[in-house]
């Protein structure tokens, strides 16, 4: 009963708010006194509201139950895979990473049909590259 979604979400949000309030905002937002409204006023105020609401969720959660542990693990795995893929993409480039990322994601979720693997890992990244780089003349992550 303790491990309700709202309790865990509220706890994480409260920790996020406390981290911002005590560590991040003092270091990354100027606290200039010269202006009528200090630059850190609104971020600090929203952090306090965030901490308060997070704690309220911990104390008084709704009955929303947690997903199955296996589902959470799978979500975490895919999130990590996407995050690592996007980070590597920013370093190496869309052209090299996008097909590999798409292929690895499709294989991980169990896709084995060659047609769809080709569409997802070759045709779609190529179309995106063609549309964005060639037609719209915009850059893709890490693309030269």
């Amino acid at each position, binding site marked *: 009963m303790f491990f309700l979604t709202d309790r865990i979400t509220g706890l994480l*949000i409260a920790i996020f708010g406390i981290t*911002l309030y005590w560590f*991040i*905002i003092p270091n*990354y*937002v*100027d606290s*200039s006194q*010269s*202006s*009528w*409204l200090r*630059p*850190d006023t*609104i*971020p600090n105020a*929203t*952090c306090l*509201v*965030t901490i308060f*609401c*997070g704690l*309220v*969720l911990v104390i*008084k959660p*709704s009955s929303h139950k947690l997903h199955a542990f296996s*589902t*959470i693990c*799978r*979500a975490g*795995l*895919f*999130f990590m895979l*996407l995050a690592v893929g996007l980070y590597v993409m920013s370093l190496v480039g869309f052209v090299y990473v996008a097909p590999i990322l798409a292929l690895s*994601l499709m294989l991980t*979720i*169990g*896709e084995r*049909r060659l047609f*769809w693997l080709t569409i997802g890992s070759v045709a779609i990244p190529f179309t995106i590259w063609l*549309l964005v780089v060639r037609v*719209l003349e915009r850059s893709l992550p890490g693309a030269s």
Partner: protein
Amino acid sequence: MVDFSTIMSGFSDAFTLWNFAFVLFGVVIGQFVGAVPGIGPVMAMAIAIPFTFGLDPLPAITFLVGVNKGGLVGGAVPAILINTPGTPDAAATAMDGHPLAKQGKPLKATKMALFSSVTGDTFSDIVLISVSAPLAILALRMGPVEVLALMIFAFSVLCGLVGKSFVKGILSAALGLLFATVGADPENYNPRLIFGHYELYDGLPLISVAIGMLAMSEIVRRLSETSSNMKAAVNIKNTGNSDDQRVTWGEYWSCRYTMLRGAGIGTILGALPGIGSTAAAFMSYALSKALSKKPETYGKGNLHGIAAAESANSAVVGANLIPLLTLGIPGSVGAALIISAFMRLCNPTSVTSV
């Protein structure tokens, strides 16, 4: 006093086959780019403007306005089908559009979005043609205090009505405000929370936030719940009922007050420079839910939810031209691009040189 002779003269100039062809062309392109998350009608207009310099002013302007308006309608398509808004304006549409699509009624949802968009846009265009001047003067009297009051009202409505939990509503608004503070402080231009990334000086790009919030969560959810048995991303069930694939006149007519309210909100907010169609869509949605006799059906595929969001966001596009055409103040980025094209196309020297 409305000058009908000028209006009729405008209609006779505008209603030619050639101009209609350019409107159609613009709407088709706008719908296509609007349906691709991350591109959007504003970028399409920016790219299209240089190509219009070879055209007469009237078809060029109709083409650009077509791209802008078509883009807004196009943004609703991925919002409904895959819960990923093509444009930020369509985020509110996803709240009821996607559940309706999951019930096997994607065509009903997209058609409702189209019809309510057209209704909202037509309403604001009529206001633009008939009473734009007095409305522009009223809009100019809205100073920062009034705009702040309006935004606080919008936040209050959203906190109380979007979702089931009031605490979660406040939390969402607080997190939204926190992320909105990323970038330069408007008073002294001091950087806030940019962590050395100077590309964040203008704040977090709205489309990135919208895609990150809605699309990424949807992708991770779908991936984590996928079994080895592959299914299409958009599962269009055949319910066997033809009414599920179309919007009947009765359904459209039952949403008339919702659409009118949305169109009114969109027109008023659109006439105020700086308040975008996203705020209008959410405000209209929240108000529609508040006034509904069955608020619990919102978020589960209620046609009124789609009608409220789409009529409001489309009404903003027409109303954005009110301060532009009467006072020369663009109400949005899209309107700013249109005025830049106006200045280039309607300048006698540039037209003769083309």
